Each structure stands twice: as C-alpha cells, then as structure tokens.
C-alpha cells in the first residue's frame, strides 16, 4: 500500500511540476473558465438577480468544460513523446498512475473552482452563504470528476480521436454529478432552499465509486 501511494505521489508531483513549468492551466484553462462565465452572461442577457439564481448551474458547467481541457492535457502529456510507453516499461502499478494523475487533475480543478467562485461573485453577484458546504461540496465534486475524467481519458486515448470522443463518453456519465453539485451549491450560495449536505453525500459516493473503478480498470485500459 505504501509503495502504491508513493508511486502515485511520484506521478502526481511529476504532472504538477509539468503544469508549473508549462503553465497551461494558468495561461489557457483559467482564462477559458472566466470566458465561459462571460459568455453565459452575454447569452442569457439577464440581470444580476436572474444570473445569481442560475449561478450554481453555470458554475458547474464551466467546471465540466475545464475538466475536458484538463483531462485532454493530462493525456497529451503522456502521448507527446510516448512517455506512456515509458510508464509501462518502468513497472509502475497502473492504479498508482491512475491515482497520481487524478490527484494532479484534482489540484488543478480546485484552483479553477476558486477562480470561478470569485468569477460568479463578481459577475453574477453571488455570495457564499455556507462556507463549509461550499468547501466540502467543491472538494468532493472535484474528486468525483477528476477520477472519472482520468478513467475516460485513458478510454479515449491512443485512437487519434481523443478530442472529439472524450466529451461524448465522459459528460453523460457525469450527469448525476452536475445535478448534485448544482443543488449543493444552490444551498451553499443561498440560491435555493435545498438540502445541500444530502447532495454532497451522493457526490461523495460517486467519488468513491469512480476512484475505485478507475484504479481497478486503468491497468487493463493502458495495455495494448
């Protein structure tokens, strides 16, 4: 178990170090996240009161779009110079590679969620009523989508059509997460009267199932 975690840590820190060097998240994905919020503003042509009502849903749609980019990037890093074969040759446990890559995506998503929260506060006039719920629901959702995304990133890789195949594979599966996270944030941001904690429980269950399935299936998926 210890070596699994240390191997995962090795992979996660490698991915995060690559991000720190290449700054794809900060230079490309983060601006894209803000852009999505702005586009929604234009498209909905609404006053702040209405936007505030929709903010939780728009927030999570923006997160999902950023997830697609983050997963694509995570996968591209390995296929660029065939480092993926190197990972197979090195003998790392596939579950460790899965956990490591998911963890790296998780960290990036948390940063994006922070940015997007600031975004909806500024652009939509939202406010965080329940800080603890906002934190936990955000964390749990990020975990759920990072794990699922990493799994589907492997499913869609190596076929030459990853960019177009990933969304149609990944997003329908995340429908319950979108529903749950939006309701949880409805509560946390005071946009609607819902039981956010109940939804967070469902999201936590999703996160656990996704991580387990991902760790188990990843090995079979990266083999030729």
């Amino acid at each position, binding site marked *: 178990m210890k070596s699994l975690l240390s191997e995962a840590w090795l992979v996660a820190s*490698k991915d995060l*170090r690559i991000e720190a060097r290449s700054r794809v998240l900060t230079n490309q994905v983060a601006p894209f996240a803000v852009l999505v919020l702005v586009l929604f503003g234009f498209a909905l042509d609404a006053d702040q009161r209405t936007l505030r009502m929709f903010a939780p849903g728009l927030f999570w749609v923006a997160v999902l779009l950023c997830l697609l980019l983050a997963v694509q990037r995570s996968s591209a890093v390995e296929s660029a*110079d065939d480092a993926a074969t190197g990972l*197979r040759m090195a003998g790392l446990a596939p579950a460790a590679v899965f956990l490591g890559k998911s963890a790296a995506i998780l960290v990036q998503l948390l940063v994006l969620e922070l940015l997007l929260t600031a975004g909806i506060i500024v652009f939509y006039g939202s406010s965080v009523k329940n800080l603890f719920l906002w934190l936990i629901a955000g964390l749990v959702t990020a975990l759920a989508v990072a794990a699922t995304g990493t799994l589907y990133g492997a499913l869609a890789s190596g076929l030459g059509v990853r960019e177009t195949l990933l969304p149609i594979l990944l997003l329908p599966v995340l429908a319950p997460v979108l529903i749950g996270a939006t309701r949880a944030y409805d509560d946390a941001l005071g946009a609607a009267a819902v039981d956010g904690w109940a939804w967070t429980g469902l999201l936590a269950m999703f996160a656990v199932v996704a991580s387990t399935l991902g760790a188990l299936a990843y090995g079979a998926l990266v083999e*030729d």
Partner: protein
Amino acid sequence: MPVIQLCDVVALLGRFPALAGASLSVEAGETVLLQGPNGAGKTTLLRLCAGLVRPESGQAQVLGHDLSVDGRAVRRQVAMLGHATGLYEDLSVAENVSFWAQAAGLDKSLAAQRATGALARMGLDERLLSLPVSRLSAGQRRRASLAALAVRRPQLWLLDEPHAGLDQTGRNVVDELISDAVAAGATVLVASHELDRVRSLNPRVVTVAGGLVVKDTGGPK
C-alpha cells in the same frame, strides 16, 4: 538458460502480422545486431522482447518470463529505446532522469547518485541538465533518453536504431554505451541500418524480413 527464447512467434499490430513466425534464441551477454529492410518487423521484435506486445501464438520467453501470460514482469529488467524520446518536454533533463529512475523503483538518493554518473557518461554538458528537454537538439535528447535508461542498469538492452539522426559525437556515445553494457554482462539487441558501426563490436547478425528471422550468424544450430 537463454535470456530470449522465441519459437514461431506471431505478433499482430491490429490485423497486420508484424511477426509471422519468428524464432530466435539469445544467451546472456550476447550482442545481437538486427538488420533487415524497413517494415521487416525489427521494431515489433524488440517491443515483444520488452513485454510491450503480446504474442498471438508461439512460445516467447524473456528472462524466464512467459510473455503470453504476463508481459509486465519483464519490463523492469529491460531497457527499451524506441523511436520517440520518452521524455517529458517541459521538465529538465535532470528532472526527467530522476523521475524515470524513481519510477523504475530506485529510491530518491540512489536515483540522484546514478543519474549524475549516467548523464556524465552520455557526455551531456552540465549546463544542459537544467534546461527543459524542449530546448535540446534531437541528438541531445537521445542521449538524455539513454541516460534515463542506463540508470536502471538493466540486464537486457533493446535499442531500436539508436544511431539514427545523431552526429558523430552522439554516435560515439551510443557505441560506448553499448560497450559498457556488454562489459557489464548485459545482453544487447540493436536494430540498426548502421551496419558498419555496430560490426566493430563483433556482434551476432540476425536478419529479419517479412516478420521472420531469415538469417542468423550465431545461435543454436
């Protein structure tokens, strides 16, 4: 026991039979040159021995492991240099070598120790080591890849056209690597079109064509 024992191995790439019944036996410490036209199956043969490609039929044993059962067990003991560099472009040479060493199971301090030695051996200037790989030339990247592999001190080296695209210095470095590996008792398989260079190492020459081993200057008779 032979390091590599292949008997009538068929290996498919999708539907295409890259290997159509290849047989080869290599003892420990041998140096083998794989030659043959492009598309003959040399790369697939190397990848099979690395445990990356599963044999469709036939017997395939490398370092005592049966490849049709589990190719994974072989991989850590083998170093494979393919056509791609296998390096992370955004990380520096030193970071790459350190990562790959730790990935192969070496602990951090041992990895760092061996990395310094391997990089020096590959003739990479110290100033290059902290540069991101994307700033290096193709030849320098190749040498960095070899350093990353050398750190593992593998029993079996599989080199797919290691000289290709390198300048004179680079080629000399590759030759030295091969001699060092041979001196250390490792088995080396090199696929190359650079017959003259490799011939200086007095290798056994195996000719591959049409997915088969068609000529062999050594091996069991």
